[in-house]
């Protein structure tokens, strides 16, 4: 039951997938896993905000358990 990481806009473009899976851990470890697998993600990552199970999460040490969902949101550009 891995973590689902959903990628949007520039983050999806960098990874080339709209969803990838990672092992449970912390928000930081999940994102590190993606950055290792997809080097282009490293450039967009510092500008992104994150949702953990649909709630904004700014703590890199937040626990991301099995079956959790992480959303990776690049800077908004609406309007």
């Amino acid at each position, binding site marked *: 039951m891995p973590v689902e990481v959903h990628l949007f806009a520039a983050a999806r473009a960098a990874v080339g997938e709209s969803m990838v899976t990672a092992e449970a851990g912390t928000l930081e470890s999940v994102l590190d896993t993606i950055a290792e697998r997809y080097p282009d993600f490293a450039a967009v990552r510092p500008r992104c905000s994150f949702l953990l199970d*649909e709630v904004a999460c700014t703590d890199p040490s937040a626990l991301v358990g099995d079956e959790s969902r992480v959303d990776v949101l690049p800077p908004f550009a*609406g309007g």
Partner: protein
Amino acid sequence: MADPGTAVNNGLMGEIRLAEVTETVIDAPTMERLVEDDRAGAIVSFSGNVRDHDHGRSVETLTYEGHPSAEAVLAEVAKEIEGRFDLIALAVSHRVGPIPIGEAALVAAVATAHRGEAFAACQALVDLVKERLPVWKHQVFSDGTDEWVNCA
């Protein structure tokens, strides 16, 4: 005319007549009709349109992508503006998907008793949508290059 106190649109009640994220064409006149009210002395509307240029480069196509939560966030933004200003009615819509040059990406209208409040509320609404709405803009330029706006 419908009683504005019981107007329902998109599941929202009362002063908020519409707060939607849609793939269809949106325009200011539609928003203005939605906020019409005999008590309203002033209606201010905003239309943010897709341009054919950005920072001097010619834009060929433009697409907005929205996060699944975008419509819920837009409803929260509308409620926050409703709480901050003395509104009679508010309507706001953000379009996603491909948008042809010249068409609107974001439209909003507010109705108030007096004009100063209408200008202030409409501007605050648009600013807050820009800040909070999880929506992204992808531009393809005439030279074939592309970019995600704010992420270059």
